[in-house]
């Protein structure tokens, strides 16, 4: 690992200063007993923070999120080393159900809607763990419909028959229905129309500011992710290769070139990218 680049962005103001709501310590994840995917990932999400997790395809973002929300077991993966703490408490042995009750919810990559349930029923399953009564749930349902008017139109269609973007809205809305404190968002912008992408991130910001919800956000759309995030980690090949405040990351030359598409000369047209670029790796 080239220490130089690492240090270039590592600043004193690591998020550890504010008491983190989530801390991942040096975890290692193995799938199927043989495929080593995460090779010691550490990160922290401060209470009320929005943290972006960036990295190329296959870097291990999804795996990291699943390790936190304990959905790995369902994929025959396991955390073999390291710890995950939420609010200072180890959560590795809790079920996803316990986690949701504690306010940790994951929006899974690739939508995963309940195809045979209607859009509204999908949203209501999100309220399964809630106990504060029908009225509160109803209110939140209306809130989700406010965020995503399209869902209201399609509320009684079976989710399996809705379009890709509509399903993505369902998945996000369903997670919001759990009334979370920490949302693990896996590629929320995938497949969404541009103006909706903006809206989603506006929702993130609103929830974050008004309700104090924290976010850990795996995203390919680096530009927008860093715009809304306070802190960012860059993952390559199962390792964190760079971390820093969002602002600083955006200013880093490598990040600019590889993730934001801003070379020294400014933004290039997709048409003009002549050669296949050999990826510059930090490893």
């Amino acid at each position, binding site marked *: 690992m080239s220490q130089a680049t690492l240090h270039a962005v590592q600043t004193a103001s690591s998020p550890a200063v504010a008491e983190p709501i989530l801390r991942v310590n040096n975890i290692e994840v*193995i799938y*199927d*007993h*043989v495929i*080593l995917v995460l090779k010691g990932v550490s990160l922290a999400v401060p209470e009320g923070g929005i943290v972006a997790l960036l990295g190329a395809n296959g870097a291990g973002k999804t795996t990291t999120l699943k390790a936190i929300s304990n959905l790995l077991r369902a994929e025959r993966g396991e955390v073999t080393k390291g710890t995950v703490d939420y609010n200072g408490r180890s959560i590795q042995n809790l079920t996803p159900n316990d986690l949701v009750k504690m306010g940790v919810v994951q929006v899974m990559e690739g939508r995963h809607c309940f195809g045979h349930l209607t859009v509204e029923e999908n949203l209501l399953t999100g309220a399964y763990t809630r106990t504060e009564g029908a009225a509160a749930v109803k209110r939140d349902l209306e809130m989700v419909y406010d965020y995503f008017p399209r869902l209201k139109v399609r509320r009684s269609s079976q989710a399996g028959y809705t379009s890709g973007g509509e399903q993505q809205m369902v998945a996000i809305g369903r997670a919001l229905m759990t009334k979370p404190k920490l949302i693990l968002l896996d590629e929320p912008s995938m497949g969404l129309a541009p103006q909706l992408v903006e809206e989603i991130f506006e929702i993130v910001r609103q929830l974050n500011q008004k309700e104090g919800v924290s976010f850990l956000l795996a995203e390919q759309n680096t530009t927008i992710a860093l715009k809304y995030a306070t802190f960012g980690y860059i993952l390559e090949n199962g390792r964190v290769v760079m971390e820093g405040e969002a602002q600083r990351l955006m200013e880093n030359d490598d990040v600019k070139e590889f993730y934001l598409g801003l070379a020294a000369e400014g933004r290039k047209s997709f048409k003009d990218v002549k050669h296949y670029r050999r990826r510059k790796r930090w490893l």
Partner: protein
Amino acid sequence: MLYREAGQFKTSYAADQQIFPILQDRVGIAVIAAIALGVLPLVATEYLTTTILIPFLVMSIAAIGLNILTGYAGQLSLGTGGFMATGAFAAYKLSTAFPDLNIVFVFLGSGVITAFVGVLFGIPSLRIKGFYLAVATLAAQFFLLWLFNKVPWFTNYSSSGVISAPPRAIFGDIMVTGSSAHYTAKYLFLLVFVGFLALAAKNLTRCHLGRAWMAIRDMDIAAEIIGIKPLQTKLSAFAISSFYCGIAGAAWAFIYTGSVEPLAFSIEISFKVLFMVIIGGLGSILGSFLGAGFMVLLPVILTNAPHILGLNIPVDMISHLEYMIFGALIIFFLIVEPHGLARLWQIGKEKLRLWPFPY
């Protein structure tokens, strides 16, 4: 260091497309073939041959057949017993109607006849999928058994409905079916058959037909959209699968038990073969053998275990325990590796490859 593909570079795609591109695998296969052909016939007792080796080979054929349909083409079938019965009765009719027909052709012919029947019952698969199809294939299972039971023509008007294998020989005078056939002759005859069938299955599954099956299995709509004709592909899977099952049925009746009534191919056989395929590994020819071996050996071991351990348990208790252990083992193996013994074997190889470093 034992099992490495590193250093075995392929200089042409043809070389990379061999069945067993890795040297160690080729050696392994050769050793197994040598043992099966050269050593086992000499050392295996009659009990071992007739209750383990022969049923193992017979069931391997059936398992390959079902694996083609279910493991490769993704069409869940519980009609295996019915197709095996078709093979058995077709072989009986063929060999009694044409007494001079070589037994090899009797077997192949029964396979072909079963293939036609299989296609007939495969037609609904175009519309019916998954468990619905599985239950629908039970229609084939029950209907075929009923038919052979009901129509006396199939049994040459035997009053009991039982058929028994007429004595037949290969190479002039080596008896391979009937009561006078020596068990070793039966075993070797069957072994050669199995060898060819397994090779053919392996080849089919790695050529374009096999890819079409797997495409249909993994995502039939996408497969159709990229140009694979669903009906044709599914029916070809039904045909070839039934071909294998038919031969397995013929071998069962002619070589294993020597006589059968339709009831012998009851739904339990269908389930048994399905077990083999799943425990062995869906979509794996090797798995078919592993599964068949597992399923043939396990009950024999379980029934003999108390005796070997010197325990004196009444037979009914043994049987009940056998059921329990059998059920528990199935669950256990599924949990350890849902993709079957073949996958377990593969992971083992992968670990071996990484050895001595764990990851």
